């Protein structure tokens, strides 16, 4: 009994010391938490404040018709098929179509374009499509129609050439 008594006292003291140490830790955490209440949040209050955007962001493709030489190379290289040229059947004039919703902003068309400045990648981000846009159906139909219009024009031209060959007088 006489041996155990001082031992138990020692243990109680050790416990108290530990408790004090924990209390200090707890108080530290408590003040840290209070301090955190007055810190600025780590997040950005989007959409009230803008998010980070570099000034050479890869955004929408801008087309300058006056410079185009109608080589259709951009259409050939475009991985998702977001560029297509349709052709007027009567006078053969080509029109450029571009879907900002299908585009993946990879810049491949800009790199391939032989005419400097005809296709430019702007820093404007693409806008999300909504249900009203009906992106896939509208674009797929336009794409198929454009290809068909070129085939029709080529066939028409061939026919005309053949006719011109048959009677060169007219």
């Amino acid at each position: 009994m006489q041996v155990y008594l001082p031992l138990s006292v020692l243990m109680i003291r050790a416990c108290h010391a530990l408790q004090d140490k924990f209390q200090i830790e707890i108080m530290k955490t408590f003040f840290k938490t209070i301090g955190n209440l007055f810190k600025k949040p780590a997040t950005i209050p989007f959409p009230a404040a803008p998010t980070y955007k570099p000034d050479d962001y890869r955004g929408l493709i801008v087309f300058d018709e006056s410079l185009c030489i109608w080589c259709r190379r951009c259409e050939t290289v475009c991985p998702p098929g977001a560029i297509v040229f349709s052709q007027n059947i009567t006078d053969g004039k080509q029109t450029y179509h571009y879907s900002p919703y299908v585009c993946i902003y990879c810049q491949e068309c800009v790199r391939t374009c032989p005419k400097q400045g005809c296709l430019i990648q702007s820093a404007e981000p693409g806008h999300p499509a909504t249900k009203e846009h009906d992106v896939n159906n509208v674009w797929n139909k336009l794409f198929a129609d454009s290809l068909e219009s070129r085939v029709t024009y080529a066939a028409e031209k061939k026919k005309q050439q053949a006719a011109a060959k048959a009677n060169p007088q007219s």
Partner: protein
Amino acid sequence: MSTQYNIPVGAQHISLLEPLHFKFTTENEKIIKTEANVGYVHRGIEQACCSKFKFRQVSFVVGRVCGLCSISHTTCYSQVAEKLLKLDIPKRAKYLRMLVIELDRIHSHLLCLSHVAENSGFEALFMKTMRHREFSMELLEAVCGNRIQYDFSIIGGVARDLRTDVAQSILDKFKIFRPQLDELVDIYKTNWSLSLKNKGIGVLSKEDAIRLNVVGPFARASGLGVDVRNETEELLPWKEVGFEIITDTAGDVHARNMVRLKEIYVSMKIIENIINGLPEGDLISDTKAFPEGEAVNRIEAPRGELFYYAKGNKTQVLERLKIKAPTFSNIPAMVETFTNNEYASVPAIIGSYDPCLSCTSR
């Protein structure tokens, strides 16, 4: 013998980032057998690359295999296509490729670490890690012009140059990030409640790692020093920019965390060396040739060895493209590592594998 229970986890589960299905057979709390199903996100990308797309467009398609290691896929494909075309690329392009791969590794490793913390029940650490990760996403956006799908490597070189002000901002942000990373290392290393869920859990021994052909940080945490960066010098000069291999011996979740954290320091060192010694020169070398013959290429993605096999037939469209993603190699080991762990440890173990199912089933 006690009663056995079958517990399914997935394909939709709160601790999984991607669809993955595990079927556990447990005795009381202990897992005795696991079956895995990984084919939920099969999108037929290999088939699309060999039929619908031309070989120059494929480098943008394979970038969409995985959102986290997009740059590894595009670089690996570009290299294998360059082998088929017998094309040599400029040194500046090689350095810029390495720069983006390492930036990508930083953000991928931090995502995995935060996921482990969340799955271990430590939400505050998850948010802290994700907050410190944000700088790497911004840097990638500044370097590549896009936040997720970088499209930075193209056949013959890289698509964009590194501007000097962007290079300076990388160095400046690293100065801010380094003390934050030190703090993270301290928490992951010494936090007592995290250690209960991480230390000694999900142990993969070195013998098993060798037997099951494990790759990536999963293997390096078990003491198997496989790292493609350590091995090949022919395409990307890793040793020149100060790469060193990180290994651990314990093989548990904690060791995997430590390997990933230390690799972030190595990546930062590599990026600083690249920026300080960036060679001048062209960004791209071009050719009019068509792919011919067959070639293989390996690269170290954030999750381990990425392997591409390509076969060309002198036309615009490849004949075969095989993608072997790092998680694909690790699944046999994942299934075995669960054995003899408690069922409650499963989320933390899955997080520490860093599985990428989009890569695996393509």
